[in-house]
């Protein structure tokens, strides 16, 4: 395989890691929201940590191999779709990070309630269903989707 094919393979692998881990985090977060007991919610939120190394590899790999490919394939320095993808990558990472901090807070509250009778309360329900947190996760997902659109479309 040529260098460009290797870079493309690694870039796409990183994208699979990034999107796959984001989907895994979404499923686990949804399971936490639907969990009837705080101990179960805390467990699912804690499991999100196990997919974070995959996500970090994806976040770093998409950027590093993407920029290398940009150079190797000779795309123009002014290629708007690549700059737009970079901007969306920053937005997705920032919103994903903020959403992750909210999930950590929810996990702390859920663990506290789990050790004190394991009964849910309004505070935990409000944190898990917080519209701002959900909007952040949704926008991070939309940004990732928009990057995928740009990468396939290459306008």
């Amino acid at each position, binding site marked *: 395989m040529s260098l460009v094919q290797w870079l493309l393979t690694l870039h796409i*692998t990183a994208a699979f890691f990034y999107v796959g881990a984001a989907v*895994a985090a979404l499923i686990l977060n949804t399971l936490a929201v639907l969990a009837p007991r705080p101990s179960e919610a805390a467990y699912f939120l804690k499991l999100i940590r196990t997919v974070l190394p995959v996500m970090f590899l994806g976040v770093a790999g998409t950027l590093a191999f993407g920029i290398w490919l940009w150079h190797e394939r000779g795309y123009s320095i002014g290629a708007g779709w690549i700059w737009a993808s970079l901007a969306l990558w920053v937005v997705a990472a920032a919103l994903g990070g903020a959403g992750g901090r909210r999930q950590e807070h929810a996990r702390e509250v859920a663990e506290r309630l789990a050790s004190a009778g394991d009964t849910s309360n309004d505070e935990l329900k409000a944190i898990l269903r917080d519209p701002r947190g959900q909007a952040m996760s949704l926008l991070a997902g939309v940004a990732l989707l928009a990057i995928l659109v740009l990468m396939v479309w290459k306008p």
Partner: protein
Amino acid sequence: MIAYSGPFWPFFLHVLGAMTLFGGILTAVVLSIVGLRDARPFLRAATFLALLSCIPDYVVMRIGAQWTYNNEGWKHAKPQPTWLGIGFGVADMGVIVLLLAIGGAYWWRRSGNTIAGRAVAGLSGLYMAMLAVAWLAMSGKWG
């Protein structure tokens, strides 16, 4: 504009379906491994749900694959490239592995049987490895 850009939709749906399918199976692998160490029933139920979530992803991926194949005229290519054979092989054989994992997860959820749990973890891990081979072969255009 996107709608008129030729092969955008088929390939986009194929890639999107494949990536979300990987996410679903990754979740199932994590939950099944954890569920083998921790016997609480909610982990077995979650593994089953994570595997069920793979079905719509698989359908989108497979429809996108066939649509791209037809649009780009690959059916007339003789011989077919290796990467295409690997992709179709994983898609069509892999669905059997996925369905067996879903069946195993249903059994595990109902019985709590450790053998069922091991089978689910093994089949999910196998399917994840098959997906990785497919995306490596297809993105690297092997053969």
